[in-house]
C-alpha cells in the first residue's frame, strides 16, 4: 500500500473486504471501512519508517538496539572498540514487527550498514570485522580465530540465555523514578 492510495475510497473498501472476510463488497459497513482505513494509513507509515534507515545508513551505521540487553551490549561494545561513529535508535513497542520486517527475525540488535539490515550479534560483528578490520577483534592466526569464534558461540548460546533466565523472574523490580524525570 502506498501513501497516495490510502485515501482512495475504492482501495479502502477493498481492504475492508479483505480484512473482514465479508463475502460481498457492498456488505462492508462504514465501521469496517474506518478500521481498514486506519490499517492502511498505519501500514503506509510503517513502510515509510522501514525505508528511512537505509538512506542515512549510507553515511553512518545505525543501530536499532535495546539498552539493557546483553546481546545489544555486545554489539555496542564492538562498535565502540573499533571507534565506528554510529547512531543508535531505541524502537517503540512495535519493535518486534519492525525487526521482523527488516531481517525476517524478531530480534534486536539490528545494524543498518551500507543500506543493509544485519541481525544477530555474531553476524553483525563479522560484518564489522570485514568492513572495519582495525582494531581487530578476531585473532590473525587461523586456529586462534577458530577458537575465539567457538568461545563466542558458547557464551552466546549457553551463558547469555542461562543468565537471563537466572535473573528474570516474575518481578523485575521498580524503575527508580528519580532518574527518569527528564
Amino acid at each position, binding site marked *: 500500500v502506498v501513501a497516495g492510495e490510502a485515501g482512495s475510497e475504492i482501495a479502502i473498501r477493498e481492504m475492508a473486504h479483505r480484512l473482514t472476510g465479508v463475502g460481498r463488497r457492498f456488505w462492508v459497513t462504514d465501521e469496517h471501512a474506518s478500521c481498514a482505513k486506519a490499517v492502511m494509513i498505519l501500514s503506509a507509515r510503517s513502510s515509510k519508517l522501514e525505508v528511512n534507515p537505509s538512506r542515512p545508513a549510507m553515511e553512518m551505521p545505525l543501530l536499532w538496539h535495546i539498552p539493557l540487553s546483553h546481546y545489544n551490549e555486545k554489539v555496542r561494545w564492538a562498535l565502540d572498540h573499533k571507534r565506528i561513529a554510529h547512531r543508535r535508535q*531505541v524502537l517503540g513497542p512495535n519493535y518486534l514487527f519492525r525487526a521482523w520486517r527488516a531481517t525476517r527475525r524478531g530480534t534486536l540488535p539490528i545494524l543498518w550498514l551500507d543500506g543493509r539490515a544485519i541481525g544477530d550479534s555474531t553476524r553483525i560483528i563479522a560484518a564489522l570485522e570485514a568492513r572495519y578490520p582495525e582494531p581487530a577483534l578476531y585473532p590473525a592466526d587461523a586456529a586462534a580465530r577458530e577458537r575465539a569464534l567457538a568461545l563466542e558461540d558458547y557464551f552466546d548460546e549457553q551463558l547469555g540465555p542461562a543468565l537471563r*533466565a537466572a535473573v528474570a523472574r516474575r518481578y523485575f523490580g521498580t524503575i*527508580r523514578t528519580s532518574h527518569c524525570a527528564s
Partner: protein
Amino acid sequence: MPNKAYQTLRPLVRIFPAFYRFRHKIKDARLEADRATVNAALDRIEQERQGRAYLVVDAFTVADLTAAAMLSPILQPPEIQYPLRLELPTYVRDYRAALLQHPAAQWAAGIYRLHRGHSAESLRRAAAA
C-alpha cells in the same frame, strides 16, 4: 540517549516481565539448571584462561568481549553505558553478590575496566529523514 530510552521503557515495566518470560521460554522449574549453566560458563572462563589475562591469545578478542558482555546485566560494571535503574529485588541482589565472588566475574569486571572505552555513538540527531 539513555534518558529517552528509559522513558520509553518505563510504561512497559508492568507488563514487560510476563512478555519477556514468555518470549524467552523462561520457566521457574528450570531456575536451578539455568544457574548451574551460568556457573559452568564461569568455570569454563577460568579453565580457558588458565591464569592469563585473555581467553585466546595475548590480546583482547571477540571471545573476551562476548564473555564480559554476556555477564554485564548482573555485573553492572561502572563502565556500562546503560546501567540498570531498578531497585533490584532481594533474590537478584543475593545472586549478584554470590556471582561476584567467582574469579571469572572479577576477570570480566577487569575486562570492562580495561577495554570498554567510550561510546562512539554520534550525537547527531537520529532518524533525520
